[in-house]
């Protein structure tokens, strides 16, 4: 059972991807990568990458669903694509801010 709370870390069962939840949604949802549900940092993976869900993740990108109720930061990149409750996640579009410190 995934509890997608802010600060929790998840790794792909089928590629190198790891994410940290920035904005969480709690229980009753599924976050997957490369076609397989993501597992806890200490759990073992397994299975193979679904070639239709293999566009890859990029280090440091924040991935969100359409209404931005879930936000996950990629902290290790891999070959799979991220999905949340069957919806493909896209990189968050944020306005670049000037460097302030």
């Amino acid at each position: 059972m995934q509890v997608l709370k802010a600060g929790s870390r998840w790794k792909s069962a089928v590629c190198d991807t790891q994410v940290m939840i920035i904005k969480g949604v709690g229980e009753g949802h599924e976050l997957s990568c490369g076609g397989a549900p993501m597992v806890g940092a200490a759990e073992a993976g397994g299975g193979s990458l679904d070639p239709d869900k293999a566009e890859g993740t990029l280090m440091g990108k924040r991935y969100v669903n359409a209404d931005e109720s879930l936000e996950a930061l990629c902290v290790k990149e891999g070959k799979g694509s991220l999905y949340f409750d069957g919806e493909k996640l896209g990189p968050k579009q944020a306005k670049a801010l000037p460097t302030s410190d």
Partner: protein
Amino acid sequence: MNIITLLEMTAETFPDRVALTCEGRGIDYAGLLRAAHGAAAAVRAAGVARLGHLAVTSPAAPAALFGAAIAGVPYVPLNYRLTKEEIAALIGRIAPALLIADADYLVGVNLPGGVEVVDRGAFLARVLAYAEPEEADFEASVAVELFTSGTTGKPKAAVLRHENLFSYIVGSVEFGSAAEDEATLVTVPPYHIAGISAMLSSIYAGRRMIQLPNFSPEEWLRLCREEKVTNAFLVPTMLRRVIDHLAGSGEKPDCPSLRAVAYGGGRMPLSVIEQAMAMFPGVDFTNAYGLTETSSTICLLGPDDHRQAAAGEDPLIRRRLASVGRPLPTVELEVRDEEGKPVGADVIGGIHVRGPQVSGEYGGIGSMLCPEGWFDTRDRGFIDGEGYLFLDGRADDVIVRGGENISPGEIEAVLLAHPAVADAAVVGVPSEEWGEVVVAAIVLRGRDVLAEELQIWVRDQLRSSRVPERIRYVDNLPYNELGKLLRRVVRDDFHAG
């Protein structure tokens, strides 16, 4: 969440890129991450609850910040410019602790029990040579404790949790966004929130840091040129010193690689920013407003705002050069009246903020956030019709004269506009008749001026209640080393004299 993730990401992506340069020596991101693990091992071996830092800025500061994070204890940088008694008192409040120190700052300090001191140089040599990875504590809660400057009383320890700092960085900095040739010159001391955020932002962006332990305009300009600095952050006093040095020496302000200068940490005089923009026409200026309790920046006045304001004919646009800009997208900000109700445009009130980077928590006191998560900054100001925030001093500095709230900033601005006035501080002193009355300490610019002339000057432009009842002429006003006016000292001088 743990801020070590920020450094791990950069170290994995750019292991060989230079993370920081200090006194001519460079350390790459992989090396900095190893040093952080070394610092964590030192904390665990000492079995302490905090990692203190009483030293000038150096690679030991980021190693300690991230090492404390790995070990799951707070990093507590202390102000080495305090008196020996003040330093001893703060050290007593962080025990049991491992304290990284420059020996000079401990001379004559009565060390309390439970504190193990390690010399900064020895600490740095040890952690840079460390190779064993430590297990990071992802359950860690507090990342940093920062003692506030205590301009109004005993220093309070502001508590910044991992999620506050992490949210601030991830929300305001794009990971790895710096090109390899970018370098930022860090001059703020490590015990200031801007010193912490400079380390976190630069590392997350992948931008090389050049650390300057003791600021001087000559050294700042030299490093800008020699290290091909692209970005810098300055407090207003430092920018003024750079401008004064250039104007006084006739030295050309050539810093060909410099692209962006951010400033904050105190009120920026209009004349200084105007001169700076004229001297460095190609540089992007950004005003950053924030507090220790908000993990640094909450509002920004960006480069386009600066240029529009400087070139503008419309007085409403021109005055924006004195604004601190608009809130970050991740921060909510409201100006409220004394009953706590939001006020309309251009009305002065108390500034309240909310967002994941806002901590509003103090050691031994707890959270000062209201149940809905808002933090009362104790700063006052107003928002104009376009959403730009203007500051108007601290709530604690407001003078209450016969029930009327008077903001010292408004009177100071009028006094500073007088040709004979170089600097001015307005404070309230007790009065039997009015509760408090307005008084002013004035630094003159060369020529004498009668107190009466200044009183008429203020009366002509503001209401009579704003007129300083007493005026003292002084050689200098008391500022701390970061340019914050010490109003308490100004008030005490009126009591004494």
